[in-house]
């Protein structure tokens, strides 16, 4: 026997209350998606710095103290300088290692909506070294000229846009004063900057190593060579950057997004629960009529569930229709001009929101099942 309990009838004939519920859901889903896009700028923005750049360039500095106490393979015990030389020679001989130069470094900064990341770039003493470096990293000068004198730097386009820098400006004047002048703009997918040191200023010295991804695990290399790395040593290689990315970007942002989503959806769930309880109460007589004229409880339950799916489904769809174009607009009109690297399309987040929607639907089973359980026939109402 076909059930005539149509879910559309309620939806079509109660446009105001249904529209209120759909709007609340749609806006909640859209807000969560937009917040996700904004927060993910910290992940998208720092990806080139933390996951791509270290596949080509690494930095390290090992203290004399560490070298003294370490038994470096192939080196006599005692002289740390000799140990360092052995380490460098062995490293240079490794396949994929193109160059190791002791150089001063500077830090370029990149701002996201939440958080900022600083990454070292080398200051070479000759134009040849700079050209070699740009060639290795696949970066191209797109404006200005390459550094050719002390204190000149060529900065990544991404950083310049993000930090509102221009050729001719002092580089990070707030930190270095009038020490480094921007003379060129360099474009690269992995955010490459380079410069020449200012002899009046020591910005920190590292060994800068140009390698390929297969040789990018310097920590493992040093451990293999017998170096007991300690707190005074610095190794910025691919695994170190990946670890930073995992802990400080990916997981942290995921935690923040999950917390915000949980809080918003908790309030949405509570609101929907309250709204639904009152919505079900208003329809008690209707459900009792159905039970009295011979409809089975599961048929009434089926109608209620179909109504819920329609309301939540439309709410979800409208939410996504609002969210994705809004995210694209936000990206193109606000984030891109501000130099903040972002993405507008996150199918994973959409799937997550769909899962949240199902979770709320699951929660709403409680009042629905209670209502189904409580359905009486009209004789009981009239008693």
């Amino acid at each position, binding site marked *: *026997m*076909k059930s*005539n*309990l149509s879910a559309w*009838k*309620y939806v079509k*004939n*109660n446009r105001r209350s249904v529209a209120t519920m759909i709007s609340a859901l749609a806006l909640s889903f859209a807000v969560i998606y937009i917040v996700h896009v904004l927060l993910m700028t910290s992940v998208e923005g720092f990806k080139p710095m933390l996951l791509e750049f270290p596949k080509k360039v690494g930095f390290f500095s090992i203290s004399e103290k560490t070298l003294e106490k370490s038994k470096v393979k192939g080196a006599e015990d005692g002289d740390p300088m000799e140990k360092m030389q052995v380490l460098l020679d062995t490293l240079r001989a490794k396949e994929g290692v193109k160059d190791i130069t002791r150089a001063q470094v500077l830090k370029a900064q990149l701002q996201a909506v939440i958080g900022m990341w600083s990454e070292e770039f080398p200051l070479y003493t000759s134009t040849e070294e700079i050209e070699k470096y740009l060639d290795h990293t696949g970066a191209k000068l797109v404006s200005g000229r390459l550094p050719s004198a002390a204190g000149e730097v060529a900065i990544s386009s991404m950083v310049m846009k993000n930090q509102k820098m221009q050729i001719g400006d002092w580089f990070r004047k707030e930190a270095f004063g009038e020490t480094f002048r921007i003379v060129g703009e360099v474009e690269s997918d992995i955010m490459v900057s380079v410069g020449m040191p200012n002899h009046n200023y020591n910005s920190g010295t590292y060994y800068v190593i140009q390698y390929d991804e297969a040789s990018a695990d310097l920590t493992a290399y040093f451990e293999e060579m017998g170096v007991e790395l300690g707190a005074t040593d610095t190794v910025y290689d691919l695994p170190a950057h990946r670890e930073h990315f995992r802990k400080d970007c990916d997981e942290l942002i995921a935690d923040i997004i999950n917390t915000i989503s949980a809080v918003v959806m908790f309030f949405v769930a509570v609101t929907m629960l309250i709204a639904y309880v009152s919505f079900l109460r208003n329809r008690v*007589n*209707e459900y*009792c*009529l*159905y039970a*009295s*004229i*011979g*409809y*089975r409880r599961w048929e009434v339950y089926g109608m209620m569930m179909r109504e819920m799916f329609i309301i939540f489904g439309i709410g979800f769809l409208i939410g996504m229709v609002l969210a994705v174009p809004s995210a694209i607009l936000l990206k193109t009109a606000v984030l891109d001009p501000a130099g903040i690297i972002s993405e507008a399309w996150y199918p994973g987040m959409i799937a997550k929101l769909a899962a949240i929607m199902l979770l709320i639907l699951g929660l709403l089973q409680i009042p629905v099942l209670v209502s189904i359980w409580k359905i009486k*026939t*009209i*004789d009981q109402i*009239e008693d």
Partner: protein
Amino acid sequence: MFTTKNLSMIYDMDTDEKMYALKGLDLSLPDKGLIGIIGPSGSGKSTLMYCLSTLKKPTDGSVCYNDTELTTITDAEREQLRRREFGFVFQKHYLVPYMSALDNVMVAAVNNDAATQEKAKKFLDALGLGEREIGKRPTKLSGGQCQRASIARAMINDPKVLFADEPTASLDHENAFNVMRILKEYSADRLVLVVTHDRSILGDADRIIEMWDGEISRDGGTL
């Protein structure tokens, strides 16, 4: 069609002061005709109707419908009977507020095809609800129109038995007689049971059962 034996309904079974709504009723009802059950409030007339229509399960005794013992059938069988063979007109119309009069009739229909829709319109028209009214929601209809829509709802599946509990309670005199006339016509080839305390509307009844304090005080007469 219906036979009851020693039919009893006791409320507050667990307390010391048991309330008998029906006290050992023996009754036999035919396949067709308009039968009125009258009596004052609390006499048990509605309880009798609800026991016959399976909405209530009696405390004791038996209700036999076409050789089926209604007190022992499953919930599903009870629901099936109410859906396919019984029609209901309640004291209040219980129309679904967000549906049109036509949808309110169709919601009870076993079939949802064009022919049934046409039948629903015909019923509504015969009950005085024309094209203009059938699209209106209950809030836009008068009490009489709502009650007539609820009668059409009760008739839509051509039930073998139509139970009407105070069907004219919310109607004026003219509408009340119109409704009774429709029920009388309807009872030509099926059973229509009308529960009321208003003796005046039962002028056309084929049989009147009078109830008093859970018992049948008089059975068989007409006005």
